[in-house]
């Protein structure tokens, strides 16, 4: 007994010394940051707004407008050809969305645009109730999983056994056509409101809020970016369907569950957009401006002896290499080859740590969101 007790004491003694040594080691490696650095945050904000966010939103709104038009043509004449046109327009808009979803700031934040645009799995039973009752208010939080691209995915690809039967439903059911119309109109309203706000004055507000407080544009958008990377990209698109957060894989949680063979396209677009944002690459063309990468390089940020931005970009590259090996259809991938999904998750997770811990520390930014309690 006493021997045991002594050994605990000895252990505690050694441990406390180990901690002290560890802390000293840490503090020499990472120079304490001062509150302000000389990096011109506004130049970076201008690059983000003018070359990435606004062009991304212009592209998205353009694709949504195409979808509105395709919908109008289809509702006028419900031919197979027009139905295919609508489905293609839906996919184009859904892909375009992947490049702007991460920018949940300003009007997008106020409207919670992501929650009304891309919550999946969609509630197909709730959708059918709405179609039947014709009584629904798409502004309600409880209807977030009965609208947006996933709800359209269900209407266009899952609302009957096969494509011709789905087309027959649209032909026969005015309520279903109305619901389709309402969903697409809402996507159009939401996206247009956000773009108009950027073009109307929010752009200046955004670039002028160039301080380093928690409510500054950089701190907020970097948090939005990380939140998106962690929750929507890493967890939503890969981790949750692969069963990382549950006892078993949940293949029905993949994005575009009804269409199925586009889940990889959506994911890769989202991943590439995340990488491009980190590196400050323009949405259009090959230009590149000030970015999180150049900010880290300016600060000469080093982790474990290596340049931090290189570490992050190397990890992005290995994530892409791994992700390229995934099949087009994540439902099938989870069902048949889930290890591949899990390996992709692991690659994404590795960068979560570099971004959330090392990058945030280097930039002296606090994480402003909490992991929900789940109750």
């Amino acid at each position, binding site marked *: 007994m006493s021997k045991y007790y002594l050994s*605990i004491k000895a252990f505690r003694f050694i441990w406390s010394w180990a901690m002290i040594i560890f802390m000293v080691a840490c503090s020499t490696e990472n120079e304490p940051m001062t509150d302000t650095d000389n990096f011109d945050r506004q130049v970076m904000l201008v690059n983000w707004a003018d070359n990435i966010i606004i062009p991304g939103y212009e592209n998205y709104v353009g694709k949504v407008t195409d979808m509105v038009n395709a919908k109008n043509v289809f509702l006028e004449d419900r031919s197979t050809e027009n139905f295919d046109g609508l489905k293609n327009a839906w996919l184009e808009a859904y892909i375009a969305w992947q490049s702007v979803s991460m920018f949940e700031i300003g009007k997008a934040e106020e409207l*919670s645009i992501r929650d009304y645009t891309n919550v999946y799995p969609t509630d197909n039973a709730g959708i059918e109730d709405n179609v039947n009752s014709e009584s629904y208010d798409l502004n309600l*939080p409880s209807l*977030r999983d009965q609208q947006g691209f996933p709800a359209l995915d269900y209407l266009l690809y899952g609302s009957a056994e096969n494509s011709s039967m789905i087309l027959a439903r649209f032909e026969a059911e005015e309520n279903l056509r109305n619901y389709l119309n309402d969903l697409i109109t809402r996507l159009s309203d939401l996206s247009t409101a956000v773009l108009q706000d950027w073009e109307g004055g929010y752009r200046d507000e955004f670039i002028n809020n160039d301080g380093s407080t928690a409510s500054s544009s950089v701190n907020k958008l970097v948090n939005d970016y990380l939140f998106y990377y962690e929750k929507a990209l890493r967890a939503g698109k890969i981790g949750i369907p692969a069963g990382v957060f549950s006892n078993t894989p949940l293949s029905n949680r993949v994005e575009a569950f009804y269409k199925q063979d586009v889940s990889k396209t959506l994911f890769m677009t989202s991943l590439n957009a995340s990488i491009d944002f980190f590196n400050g690459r323009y949405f259009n063309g090959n230009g590149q401006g000030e970015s999180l990468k150049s900010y880290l390089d300016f600060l000469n940020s080093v982790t474990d002896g290596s340049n931090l931005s290189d570490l992050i970009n190397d990890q992005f590259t290995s994530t892409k290499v791994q992700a390229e090996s995934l099949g087009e259809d994540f439902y099938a991938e989870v069902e048949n080859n889930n290890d591949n999904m899990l390996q992709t998750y692991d690659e994404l997770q590795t960068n979560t740590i570099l971004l959330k811990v090392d990058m945030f520390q280097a930039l002296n930014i606090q994480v402003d969101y909490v992991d*929900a309690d789940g109750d």
Partner: protein
Amino acid sequence: MKKILVLALISGMLYSCSEDENLSPSVNAPETYTFERNSSSTVAFNGQTNRIMMAKELVGGMLDFAMTKEQLLEMYRNETASGGDAAPFENSDLNSATQSIKSKVAASSDYFSTNTTESSEVKADFESWINAQIDEVFPNQNKVAAPGIAGQIADGSSTRYVNKLGLEYNQAVAKSLIGALMADQMLNNYLSSSVLDANNNQQENDDKITVDGKSYTYMEHYWDEAYGYLYGTATDKENPNPTVGSDDDFLNKYLGRVDGDEDFSGIADDLFNALKLGRAAIVENGYSLRDEQVKIIREKVSQVIAVRAVYYLQQGKAALPDDRNNEAAYGSTFHALSEGYGFIYSLRFTRMPDSDQPYFTKSEVDTMLSKLMGDGANGLWDIEESTLDSISEEIAAKFDFTVAEAGS
């Protein structure tokens, strides 16, 4: 008797000397909560298991918009308004059970046997929350909540339903039951000398005279009933801590949550070990060792409630929207503060280990709740960070933890 005293003294001395060891030579706690007499178990707490399950159905029912007031109140009472037999529960075993939630709300021997006035006030609080859920929130199921208007509001991917002040009545009921039902029965009733040692219990326990038709003595059984309010729905009721936190939505859940905070890790083991050792002490007639465990249990269970109260106040503060005019962004704050409301309400049922008093009196709790809801005419819509901090500080000051430790 003398022998017991000497034994207790020695065991007390040994106990105080050995920091890392809960056992004394006279009383060996078993590895698990397993106690037998003549090869049959002496442990029973079905009534507690039933009440936890009833509470779960009641709380779930408060968000089932097809429910009527009558159905919810019948769940609360497990009888009709006129006192007749009711069958409100989905689980038919609960319908045939004799227990009810209401009869054990604010019903402990120590706090309420001579204070039926307050007991009936507390019982009525729960009925008023249930009624208000039906009267105020249900009709606005499909309205967006706004200051002064009940309705729904987004909290992350969840949708919450609040009254016009931003309070979720279902959370008020759920978290207040942790104090008014679970903790009150456990700390102030079944672990109380007024119950454990009532009548001739100690002599009968010394002589191992069991209850008619049962394998346990009264004292053993009362102790088990205290255990049941914490571990009554555990996956493994004899060795419950491996799943602590996921076995109910009440005291067990939040013991698990507090234990998961590194500032408080080990509290679940401390509680389980104290319950186990106290029960073993009863078997060995070691009443002072038993009472030492009672103190530990009272302190730790009270701490769970206080830590969670502070935690939710701080979470509510952290979640406040940057733009206080953005009404859609209040959902996470409201949800946290509604849970916090219930944990504050529960503080009145805590128990200081060396006293016959709670850490906070009813009037202190009432004052804190008025402050929480009183920063403006619209209640939680108007909440100020300084109010959340001051209530947090007031709670933490009575305990051995800081706001920062509890708040994350």
